[in-house]
């Protein structure tokens, strides 16, 4: 159990700065997910906490102790790797016991801890097997077990579910979350999968190009994204963006010429309007904000996605409707944007604008 404080951390390889000053304060027992596209520096950040990468500047403290120069083994952490990193020549038991053996714990204590962890993870039957005789999901459990037996202050997960198939991933993410709630160990979890991030996190950190774009609860990020990047990254399918004109406290959609009936205090002449696919309604021409032509339809079962296009658009606008849709390609339809669900962003800084007065 521990608090983790990350203070103005940076990382450079030569002249190449890849992490630009990140600040995070993690509460005791919190489940923090770091999410971002590949190459955003999320794994590097995690590895710096683990002590596998050196820190260029800034401080990391665990349990109020600065750990910048400590070896990984002295940081009171445990890590689960993407490819599990099990020792192939050791049995499941030996894999889990290896760290404890090095700590020179008593044999009975080691057996005790490994058996308890195995029971918790339901791998007691496999303790004598070698990793290659296990399925991906079982290997993942062993890797978790190896972390649990160490009884660490902090769990670090580096994309632990990416090598599993989709069904198992859903199952394991639920189990990891439950396990963490039960053990109440502070956890840092890195993933590129926003669904994983949304479902598991107490708080989310969205990273992009070495900076933390936004930190907050999943719903907070979903409802109040502070940048277009966060808005586009969280939620699937991604948020739609339109450029709009603002004048005299009014907002105009240039493509349709429609002036939205909301007041705004945006001062710039142009802004980016963001609207999620599920916040767009299909309506008749009377209350239309925009007229679109269907370019593609994706039925998902419970929902359908309609991709609509209009002259003057670069990208299709995605609309999510419940159930099936009667539209076919080439049909035209009218959409209405739910006013309370509109997001506005600055065209240059891409930061959120508080639009409604």
């Amino acid at each position, binding site marked *: 159990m521990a608090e983790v404080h990350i203070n103005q951390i940076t990382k450079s390889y030569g002249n190449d700065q890849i992490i630009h000053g990140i600040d995070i304060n993690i509460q005791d027992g919190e489940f923090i997910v770091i999410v971002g596209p590949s190459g955003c520096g999320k794994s590097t950040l995690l590895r710096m906490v*683990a*002590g*596998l990468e050196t820190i260029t500047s800034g401080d990391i403290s665990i349990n109020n102790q600065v750990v910048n120069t400590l*070896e*990984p*083994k002295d940081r009171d*952490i*445990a*890590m689960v*790797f*993407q*490819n599990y*990193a*099990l*020792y*192939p*020549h050791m049995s499941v038991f030996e894999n889990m016991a*290896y*760290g404890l053996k*090095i*700590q020179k714990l008593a044999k009975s204590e080691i057996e005790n801890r490994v058996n308890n962890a195995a029971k918790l993870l339901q791998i007691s039957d496999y303790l004598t097997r070698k990793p290659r005789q296990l399925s991906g999901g079982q290997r993942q459990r062993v890797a978790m077990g*190896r972390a649990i037996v*160490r009884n660490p202050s902090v769990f670090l997960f580096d994309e632990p579910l990416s090598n599993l198939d989709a069904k198992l991933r859903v199952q394991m993410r639920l189990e990891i979350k439950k396990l963490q709630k039960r053990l109440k160990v502070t956890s840092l979890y890195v993933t590129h999968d926003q669904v994983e991030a949304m479902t598991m996190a107490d708080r989310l950190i969205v990273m992009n190009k070495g900076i933390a774009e936004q930190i907050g609860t999943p719903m907070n990020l979903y409802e109040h994204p502070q940048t277009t990047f966060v808005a586009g990254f969280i939620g699937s399918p991604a948020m739609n963006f339109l450029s709009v004109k603002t004048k005299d406290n009014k907002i105009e959609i240039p493509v349709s010429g429609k002036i939205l009936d909301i007041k705004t205090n945006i001062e710039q002449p142009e802004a980016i309007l963001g609207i999620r696919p599920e916040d767009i309604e299909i309506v008749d021409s009377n209350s239309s904000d925009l007229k679109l032509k269907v370019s593609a339809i994706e039925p998902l079962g419970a929902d359908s996605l309609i991709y609509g296009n209009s002259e003057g658009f670069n990208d299709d606008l995605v609309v999510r409707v419940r159930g099936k849709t009667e539209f076919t390609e080439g049909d035209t339809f009218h959409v209405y944007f739910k006013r309370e669900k509109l997001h506005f962003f600055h065209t240059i800084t891409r930061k959120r604008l508080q639009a409604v007065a």
Partner: protein
Amino acid sequence: MIENRPLTTFFSHLVLLCGVLVVAFPLWVTFVASTHDAVRMTQVPLPLLPGNQFLVNLKLVLFSGLEGSGSPPVGIMLFNSLIMAILIAVGKISISLLSAFAIVYFRFPFRIAFFWMIFVTLMLPVEVRILPTFAVVANLNMLDTYWGLSIPLIASATATFMFRQVFLTIPDELLEAARIDGASPLRFFKDILLPMSRTNIAALFVILFIYGWNQYLWPLLITTDRDMYTVVMGISQMLEAAEQAPDWHLIMMTALMAMLPPAIVVLIMQKLFVKGLTETEK
């Protein structure tokens, strides 16, 4: 590939049989010759069927050696060869494992330079540096010792490279997992790297044992004490034995003895040997 063409099957078997004959016939002649007495071996044609002198010859060769050849009993030479081959194989493997470990896992100054220095030794086998090496061994008073026989042959770039390749295929995450588990570098080497390179070590042991066993020029040069002779050089000494007709039956018996240990090593380690050279999955 599954094919059913009788002619192809016949032809490929024929080729294989020819190959086996070419390899096996000299071995057979050696064996047959070792089972006859000296008189039969001087008559023409040479025998192609075994005689009844095998045990007599074996006893003579193992324990009393060839009269007038200046060679000790083959038993002593076999023992010397065995010690030399094992020292060379074990020494080469230990040194190569450690140097490959250093090169792959540590960042130290002039790492690349050291790597290339090891690489360059590929171009300098014992035969090339035989005189200076002899001088060094002589100055260190290692003539006529097991260390003198083996140490100059131990430094090995090939084995270092092989282990380097093996270590490079081991995922970095294993090292990181071991670091988090608290393993020191040597502990990682002992607990993770060694067991994971087990099959490669076995394969290399087979190759290096045979390499050491077959050494001829170097033992010939540095051994003057007949009790330090190795069997491979001993055979050739027997041929030049004291201006008399070569005792073919005894020489062939010695050759047979000299062939056995490498064959036994290969047989015992066959499975690991194949695994070590072909297995890629870690």
